[in-house]
Structures are given as structure tokens and as C-alpha cells.
């Protein structure tokens, strides 16, 4: 056990773990990660780095943060931090009450107890109880000893709880148009869950009743909110208003309003054979009458082409409150634009080989439903880290030690536990006071 403890807290191991984590994170910025890359990006990267693919695939570098070896490294770092925090606590408590002067500077000799106590008091050094003997010890900022310990304890807590959250957390996202309803049996638009839990299921049917996007008279967006209602299996309905940065709760779940919302355009595509296909295109909210909102590229089952869309809230580019938006559609072939058209409500136009008609527009929004426990512990860890860091760097402790001599006077030693050069003026001032006091 002791060997393991020595190994995990060895300074070279802790430094190695820090550098290894930094290195792994650096690699994650070079190799595209599944979590935030589109299939196209991934494919392009892989075709350009064929000679590295064997290594990337063996180490699963496209999803570094989901790998057991990454979790093991994090766990080692947490263990190292945790064990070293305990060791530091033991050492600190010993140091706090020790009158060893080996690393301190002798700054005065043969002074009275009264003068020492008086100077210590004036300079805000607090008296500390020491085990035995007649020696005296005063410390300025004694809590400064515990800064690093708190910093390490906070980091340990954050890392361990983050691991727990990543294993047990689950969430799903729904992109709904006004009036649309989903229940637990229907798929999410996106979801993720930890290894130890099943995918999240809605506890009932969820309906998006209305999306409100408020603009002021200068066309500046003020607030976004979505009225939603949940209906459970017994038929009881509960209504909530979700808005950005204002979290709602329903049966232990947290409901977030995402930053994705806007206008959903219903467009009918008619091909040369006369077959009609109705598509609903969700476009991100435009923020200014002169600027457009954009959709993602999207594919459809009935055409080999990709499409995308953008729109202006007002065909006249004047008001965000207009009821006459202008929609632009593009058709893409292998990333190249092959056709483009613009539409207003009820208008029909040609888009390449298709006739397109803008039927109607409704509001949509994305809602994220989260089932996670442990966040409070993570934030408590954050608070401990902040406290530890501030104490450590803002209040370094300084010691004043009086070693009693045979004649009853004291030899005085001074020490700054770290950043000594910052406090030499304080030391020199005390030396001057001691010298003046000893002459009186």
C-alpha cells in the first residue's frame, strides 16, 4: 500500500500526468472528434491522413474522451491529487506547530518576550500554540498553509464527480415546431447517455405549444421562450415556459431552451414526373432585418442532391415583426451550388429540376431534457478550488519564531513559506523595529 502511495504521489508521476493530459487534449484538437465533427469533416481528414489511420483506429483517437484509457488516466490524476492532498494536510499540520528554524532567517537576537509579542501583534502575526517548550511562534495568514490542499481537494472532487456524471448522466434534444408533440416512444433528434444508464425516455408526451421571440422597436431581440406542456399516462397535463438561461423542472428532469430556434418553412417540391414532396425546413432565427438566418445542409430521400436554406425576416428588410419573410433555397451537388431561388409565402418558383412552393411558416425551437445528478458536487468543487487558489496566491503565510535562550530572552527567526522576495520589506521593517526596541 505504501509503495502504491509513494508511486501515485511521486512528483514526477503527478507532473507526468499533467503533461500527459495536456498532450492528449492537444491530440484531440488535431484529430477530429466524433462529438463535434460532421461525417464529411471526418471523412476528409481520414482520406488526408491515411498513413496514421492504423494508430488512430487502434487508440480510438476519434473519440478520445470516451476511451477507457482516458478515464483511467483521469482516475490516476484524481487518485494522485487525493492522496497528495491527505499527505499535505498531515505535513501542514506538523509544520504549523513546529518551531524548526532550519529554513528560516535569524533576524534578531536576545529580545524580550514582550517586544516579540508586541511586534508580532503590530504586524498582524497571530500566536500559534506549539507542543511543548518555551519557544514562541507567530504566523501571518495561517490559513495560507491550506490553500494548496483546498486547491487539490477541489480538483479531486471535480474530477471524480465529473467521471460519475459522465457514466450516469443522460440527455436528449427535441426540435419541435409549434403544435408538434412527441412521446417517450419516439426518437430524439439527438441524445447521449453514460455507460451505466439506459437512454433517457420522456415520462409522458411533450408538446411545443408556442415559441415567443420578442424584438424591441429597434429590432433588437429581447427574449426567447417556448410554452410547452407535458401530459402523463394518466392524462394530467402540466404547462411550463422554458426560456434561455431559465431552467424548468419536470419530474426530476431539467428542461433547457437551446440557442437553436427560429422559423420552420413548409415547402412543397414537385419533380418532373409531377410527384410532390412536402418538406419542413428549420432555419435558425434571423437577428436583424438586413441579416439572414441559415439552416444546416439537408438531404432528402427522393433526390440525390443536398439542399440548404436561408431567410430574411422581412422581404422588405425593414422589420423583425414582419409577417412576410423571404426564403432562399439552394440545391447543391457535391458541395457545388447548382440552383438557387427565392420565395415569399404562397409563391412558386423553379429550383433546378424541381418546382418549389412556399406553403407556410411556423416557429420552432430546440429543447434539451437532462437527467444528471452530481452537478452540485462539481460546483462545490469549483468553490473549493477558487477558495484554495485565492488563499494560496493572495495570502502566503509568514512565520515569526522566538527561540528561548538560557537568559530568558529570545532569538528571532523569520520565514516566508513562499514568495519570500515579496515580503523582504516586511521583514526589514520588523528588523528595524526589533533593533530600535532592543536599544530602548
Amino acid at each position: 500500500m505504501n509503495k502504491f502511495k509513494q508511486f501515485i504521489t511521486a512528483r514526477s508521476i503527478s507532473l507526468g500526468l499533467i503533461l500527459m493530459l495536456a498532450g492528449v487534449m492537444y491530440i484531440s484538437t488535431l484529430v477530429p472528434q466524433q462529438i463535434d465533427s460532421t461525417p464529411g469533416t471526418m471523412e476528409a481528414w481520414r482520406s488526408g491522413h491515411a498513413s496514421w489511420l492504423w494508430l488512430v483506429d487502434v487508440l480510438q483517437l476519434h473519440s478520445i474522451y470516451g476511451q477507457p484509457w482516458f478515464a483511467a488516466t483521469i482516475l490516476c490524476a484524481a487518485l494522485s491529487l487525493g492522496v497528495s492532498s491527505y499527505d499535505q494536510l498531515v505535513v501542514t499540520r506538523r509544520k504549523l506547530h513546529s518551531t524548526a528554524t532550519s529554513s528560516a532567517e535569524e533576524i534578531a537576537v536576545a529580545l524580550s518576550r514582550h517586544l516579540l509579542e508586541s511586534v508580532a501583534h503590530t504586524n498582524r502575526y497571530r500566536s500559534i500554540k506549539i507542543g511543548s517548550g518555551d519557544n514562541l511562534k507567530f504566523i501571518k495568514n495561517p490559513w495560507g498553509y491550506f490553500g494548496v490542499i483546498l486547491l487539490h481537494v477541489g480538483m479531486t472532487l471535480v474530477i471524480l464527480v465529473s467521471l460519475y456524471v459522465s457514466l450516469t448522466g443522460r440527455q436528449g434534444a427535441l426540435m419541435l415546431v409549434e403544435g408538434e408533440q412527441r412521446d417517450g416512444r419516439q426518437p430524439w433528434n439527438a441524445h447521449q447517455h453514460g455507460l451505466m444508464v439506459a437512454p433517457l425516455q420522456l415520462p409522458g408526451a411533450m408538446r411545443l405549444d408556442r415559441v415567443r421571440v420578442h424584438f424591441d422597436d429597434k429590432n433588437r431581440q429581447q427574449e426567447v421562450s417556448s410554452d410547452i406542456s407535458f401530459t402523463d399516462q394518466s392524462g394530467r397535463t402540466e404547462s411550463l415556459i422554458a426560456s434561455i438561461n431559465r431552467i424548468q423542472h419536470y419530474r426530476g428532469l431539467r428542461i433547457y431552451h437551446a440557442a437553436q430556434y427560429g422559423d420552420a418553412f413548409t415547402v412543397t417540391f414537385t419533380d418532373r414526373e409531377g410527384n410532390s414532396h412536402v418538406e419542413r425546413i428549420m432555419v435558425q432565427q434571423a437577428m436583424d432585418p438586413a441579416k439572414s438566418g441559415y439552416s444546416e445542409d439537408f438531404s432528402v430521400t427522393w433526390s440525390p442532391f443536398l439542399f440548404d436554406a436561408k431567410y430574411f425576416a422581412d422581404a422588405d428588410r425593414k422589420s423583425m415583426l414582419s409577417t412576410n419573410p423571404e426564403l432562399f433555397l439552394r440545391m447543391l451537388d457535391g458541395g457545388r451550388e447548382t440552383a438557387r431561388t427565392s420565395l415569399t409565402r404562397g409563391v412558386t418558383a423553379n429550383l433546378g429540376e424541381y418546382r418549389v412552393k412556399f406553403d407556410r411558416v411556423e416557429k420552432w425551437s430546440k429543447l434539451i431534457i437532462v437527467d444528471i445528478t452530481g452537478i452540485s458536487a462539481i460546483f462545490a468543487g469549483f468553490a473549493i478550488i477558487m477558495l484554495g487558489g485565492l488563499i494560496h496566491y493572495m495570502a502566503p503565510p509568514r512565520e515569526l519564531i522566538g527561540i528561548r535562550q538560557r537568559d530568558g530572552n529570545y532569538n528571532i527567526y523569520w520565514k516566508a513559506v513562499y514568495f519570500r522576495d515579496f515580503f523582504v520589506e516586511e521583514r526589514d521593517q520588523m528588523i528595524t523595529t526589533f533593533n530600535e526596541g532592543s536599544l530602548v
Partner: protein
Amino acid sequence: MKLSLELYISANWAVVVVYVLATISNVAGVLFNNERMERISYWGASLGLALHSLVIAYWWSVVGHGPYMAPNEVLSSDAWAVMAAFLIFLRIYPRIKPASILAFPSAFLMLALSLFYNPGIRTLPATFRSVWLIIHIGLYKISLATLVIGCALAIFYLLKQRGDRGWLARLPTLETLDVYSYRFAGFGFIFWTIGMLAGSIWAHQSWGRFWGWDPTETWSLITCLMFGAYLHLRRFFKLKGTAAAWFFIACFIISLVSLFGMATLSGSIHSEYFK
């Protein structure tokens, strides 16, 4: 609105001119050991900072949000933070005085650069309306400012070590430069870490996740780990002197990549304001 934009740009250029004059006076004062010139430079920098504060406050009232949306606002407030932090720390630690040679030009260069970023009015997205955003961004700005001072001291250490002649001889001792650089790395590290944690709380409040491995988040954590390694090396492995100075400069460059490189180049959610 057009008039207020023109006024904003003109006022910013006026601040740049004041900062440039303060820099010239400061560099001349340090290089030629002219205390009067140095004193004038601090008055100039303080005047520039006061004007700069007014300009930022004015623009805040016009656009309705703090200086953290458009690239122009971000760089301008970074310049303000560097100048303000330097003048405040100078009162607490007078021995950092020579770091003005890097702090003053950093401030005017960032402010001048900001004016080439097409100043204009940006609407604040709803997700940005959180007090955590202000804490998150404010702490990063303080961190950047302390790291600029620390980096200046590390550079002076390397210069002085090569030849302790001329104006370099008037700098504090090598030991002092070394330990001050260490202390400012500590300040930078702690403000950076707390800024990152504040961002995490904000992300949880806005998106239901406290960490998402976004490129800027990842680089911010890399920076934090590198400064953590630097502090570990100094404390436990007795790293100091030349090696420590070079290590600090490397960490500082990484911090710049996180703050500016990622925000400009990557597809990060943090890059929104630089688009």
C-alpha cells in the same frame, strides 16, 4: 446611430494616440534613465486609461451590452484590462515598473488592432445574457493582463542574463525578475482557472452541460494544465532562471492561442463573436 459609431471610432483613435505618446515617453525614460519622462508616461497612461474607460462605458450604453461581443469590443477591453491591471499592480509591487515596456505597447497595439475589426453594433444573443458571462470573460481578461506582466518580466530576465549593461542594468536583479514572473504566473493561473470554472457554470445554466470539449474549452484546459505544470516544476522541481523564463513564455504563447487563435480559427461556439 451612425454618428455614435463615428464618435466611438474617433474617441478610440484619440486613446490610441495618448497610449502611443505614453509608450514613447516610457521607453525613452527607461532606456535613457530619465525619471521625469517615466513619470510623464504614467500620467499619460492614466489619462489614456480614463479616456478609454469613458469610451467603453459610452459604447456599452449605445449597444446595450458589455465589451465582449464584437472582436473590436473584445480587443479594446483586453487592452483596457492590461493597462488597468498594470497600473494597479504597479502600486502594489513597485518593482514591476519596467514591465511597462511590454504592457504599454500591448495596450495600444490591441486597441489599434481592434479598430481594424470593423467596429459596429452586434446584437447580444439570448444565451449571452447571464451574469456568469461577465464573470467568465472578466476573469480571463484579468488573467491575460497578469500574464502579460509576468511574460514581460520573463523576457527581461532572459535579456538581462545575456548582458547586464545599459538600461538592462537598471532593471531589478535577476532573482527579483524570476520570482516576480513566478508570482504573476500564479495570479494568471488562478484567474484563468476561476474564469474557466465560471464559464462551466454558465454553460451548465445555458445548455445543460458543464463541459463539452469545444476547441476553445479544450485549449483553455491545456493552458491551465501547462501553467499548473509550470507551477509544479517551480515549487517541487526547483525550476528557475532561464529554463523557467522560457517555460513561462511557452505557456504564455499557448494562452494567446486559446484566447485569440481558437476564437478566430476554430469552429468553436466561442468563435461566434469573432465572425
